[in-house]
Structures are given as structure tokens and as C-alpha cells.
């Protein structure tokens, strides 16, 4: 599974990455993490607001912090 966190390196984005890692560990799936901070690369996705979570190139959430349950549900749905 390919997971990308989009964000300019702010506290919220780091929290989202940490939460996602915890969710990944909890359900025990294989995943690669990439924290994208380059604003041009971020803008290539169909989002305006950060932080954003992208799983297998599919934007799951942007502009707000999802709960761990939401993240877990997205991870399981892949």
C-alpha cells in the first residue's frame, strides 16, 4: 500500500502521519510512507487544503484531521 501525507510540514500534518502509522500498525498491513512537502507536488493533487491523506494515489481527506477510526476504515477498504 502506498500512503502519502500532503502538507507543508506543519504540526497537523505530522500528527496525521503519526495517526496513520498507528492505524497501519494496528491492523498490520504493509505500507510505504511518503510525506510530501513540495508545494508544487501537493498542488498536483485535486486538493486545496492541507493536511491531506492519499492512499494508493486516491485522496481520502483534505483540510481536516480524520479520526483514527476513519483512517482504519479507509485502510481496510483498500
Amino acid at each position: 500500500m502506498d500512503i502519502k501525507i500532503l502538507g507543508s510540514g506543519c504540526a497537523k500534518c505530522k500528527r496525521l502521519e503519526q495517526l496513520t502509522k498507528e492505524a497501519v500498525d494496528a491492523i498490520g498491513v504493509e505500507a510505504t510512507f511518503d510525506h510530501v512537502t513540495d508545494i508544487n507536488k501537493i498542488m498536483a493533487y485535486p486538493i486545496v487544503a492541507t493536511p491531506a491523506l492519499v492512499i494508493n494515489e486516491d485522496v481520502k481527506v483534505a483540510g481536516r484531521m480524520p479520526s483514527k477510526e476513519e483512517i482504519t476504515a479507509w485502510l481496510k477498504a483498500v
Partner: protein
Amino acid sequence: MDIVLTALQSGIASLSSYLAAHVLLCLVPAFFIAGALSALVPQQSIVRFLGPAAPKWVAYPAAAGAGSLLAVCSCTVQPLFAGIYSKGAGLGPAITFMFFAPAANILALSYTGVALGADFAIARLVLSLVFGIGIGMIMALIFHRSDTVRLDNAAAFEGGEGISRQTLIFLGALIVLLVGGTLKLDFLTTPLLSVELPWAAAVAIQNALNVLVPIDLIKGDEGLSVQGVILIGMLGLIALTAWRGLGKVDDGFTRLTFVSLGLIAATLIFAALGIVTNDTGLVVTLSGRTLVVAAMLASLWPLSSRFEVWDIQQWLWETWRFVKMIFPLLIVGVFAVGVIRMFIRPEWVQAIAGSNSVLANMAGVVFGVFMYFPTLVEVPIAKMFLSLGMHPGPLIAYLMADPELSLQSILITSAIIGKLKAWTYVGLVAVFSTLAGLTYGAWTDGTSISTVALGFVAFIAVLFGALHYMDKRQHAAPAL
């Protein structure tokens, strides 16, 4: 040696009057509002009005709204600015968004209101709204041709939920708490009940405090009261408990979370009491303000229980993050301002910016452009200049230019929109800030409000009319 001591004393005086007087009823609720805006208001609720197809009359006000509601922290400013510019409503609204954000977010506005007075806060809000939209429109016009090449990415702006009703009610309660705690209205300040507490030591403590932190009304030093000392102590306790209680709240509520929230509520109510020292002890006065603050605090509990636990955790976590990010810099800034104040002669300030001339306003702008201060520190600096005899006009010019034009914001903008546009923007901000100062200065100098309003409205009408006309012509002749 003497001068070092006096300077340090001045720094401590500035810091203690800041902590005891300005922070509590203004900045504490403001931080909680900023946290709520960041955690409970989905960015999409405003961003959806900023899509590529949004008409101008929707996009510009929405950009200003995004600036004041979503952009409390600079890390949201950059992606939103880039997003609006490259995918959405374009250069104009993006500029409006960026111009408006630092002057009109809840922290800057409420702090300006308490430290400098409500008229400065209102002037700052109105002038930056009008000029933010004006500068945005001018930029959109000047760079009309290059602005048409944008990614067509309407999907990013579509959908998304609005702001829920319970969030609006919750924000409303917090705003009443902030306003009720700070406004100087009669029904809030009239004493309802006074109790005398005989406490002989209080007199001695107050005398000692007066020596340590002298009251100097000419310089604007308010001294430090017994109540102030207790409040500073309580702030210290809050910091200790909140470090873990709020900083780790995302792992779940702990006992420390409730202890720190309880302490914050108690501190706010205590700060809303009037406490004066007389010959025999303390006189404690209950006023409308105390009741409003207590009632609003009490209402927050049932209101917050209607949210999901996760949302409340997010709210507290965001609030604490803002405090951790902004507060330490602010404390250092306020102390430094107090020290520096000792070395600036009022005559210098009055000679350069003591009257509302074009040169004085330009001096305010130039100082704002070349000095960089962290978020909110521009306010104590402005207060220092005001007490040193700076005219309110140049002061507003400085307050407009300083947060708009930091080196950091110029760099971010030029990375996204290119050097030419970024420097055009800098030039426009400088001109418009000077103009804002002149307008406000003319008003405080006694030019009747109708004359100022008329001049202001006429200027805006001419500006917008000219822009509209040029826009029409450019659309009519795209081949050029």
C-alpha cells in the same frame, strides 16, 4: 549599571502588565476560538466558494472570510494561497486572502482591541478588508493575461459540508465570552456587589509591588496589582497542568485535562472580578462582566458535550498548539519592547511620525517593511510607539504594513506567483498602507466622520469603477 537596571525593570513592567491585564480575558478566549476555528470548521466549507467558476462578488468576500477564519496559522496560508491562485478563483482572490489573513484573524483583532483600543481594531479590520479586496482586484487586472493559464481543477473545490449549527453556536458562545470579558460597556463595568476583605498584608504587598513595578501613566505603565500577581501565578499553574493535560489530549482525556480546564475557567472568572487595595485590605467587586464570563463558561460545558469526543480533543489540542507556537515569542517580544522603550526618546518618534503627514505615514510603512516581528508582536510595538507620541495615522500605516510584508511572506509569494507579481504586490501594499494611515489619521485629527467617510467612499468608488472599466475593455479586446 543604573541604566541596565532601569531597562530590565521596564521590561518586567511591560511583561507583568501584559500578563496580568491583557492576556487573560482577551487572549485566552481568543486562543480557544482560534483552536475551534482550526479544529471544528472544515476548510472546505469556505474553500467551495473559491472555485475557478466563482463570480467575483462571491470570490473576493469568500477569500477575505477564508483569510480571517481559516488562516490563523501560516502553515494553512501557503497551501490555500497556492490552491486559490493556481486552481481556483485566481490571483486576485488569492492576494485578498493573503492580505487579509494576518490583520483580521481572531488573535490579532482581539489583541489589538485590548492593547490599543477598539477603534484601532475596527480601523484595522475595515481598512484591511477594503484595501485587501482593492489590491487583489488591481493585481488581477495588471496580470490579467498570465492569469488565464491555470489548471482546470474544479473538483478540488466542489462539495464538502458547511459549518454545522452546533459549531456556530459553540463559536458564538466563545465570542460572547471574549467580547463580554473585554468590552468597556456600562452594563458590564457597573459594580453590582462589593465586599471588603480585611487583609492587612495586602497593603504592604501592594506597596512593595508599586516600588518593583512603578505606575507611570504618562508612559502607559499600569503597574501591577495584588490581583495581577495572583493571576500571573494562576497562569503559571495553568501552564504546568496544560503541558500534559492539553498537550496530550489527543490520547484521551486525563485528570490533568480537567484540572487545567477548571483552572482556566477559575482564572477567567477571577480576572473578571474587580479587586482594589484600600487602607485595610481588599475590596472585591462583582460586575456584569463577572456574570457574563461565568455564565458563558458554564454554557460551554453542555454545548461541548454535543460534539463527538474526537472533535473536542482536536479543539483542545489545536488551542494548546497555538498557545505553544505564539505565546513564548509574544512574551519575549513584550519584554524586549519594554527594554527597548527605555532607549527611544519620545522626541525622535514625534519628530518623524508625530503628525499625520504623508512622510510620517511612509515612515510607518518603511519601518513595517524592514522590521520583522513574530505574529502579534506588532501590537505591543505599536503600543510603545503610541505611548511615545506617534500619531494614530502613521500607527495604522505601520500596523497594516508590518504583518503583511514580512520577508517570509514575500519569499512564499514569489515562489508561487513569481518575482514580478510579488514585488508589484509589495509596492501596492506600501502605497495602500500609507493611504490607510492618512485616512485614519485624518479622522482622529477631527476631520468630521462624514468628510472622511465621503472621501473614503469616493476613493473606493473611483478605484472600483476604474478597475471595472479597465476590466471590461480588456475583455472586449482580448487580441491585444
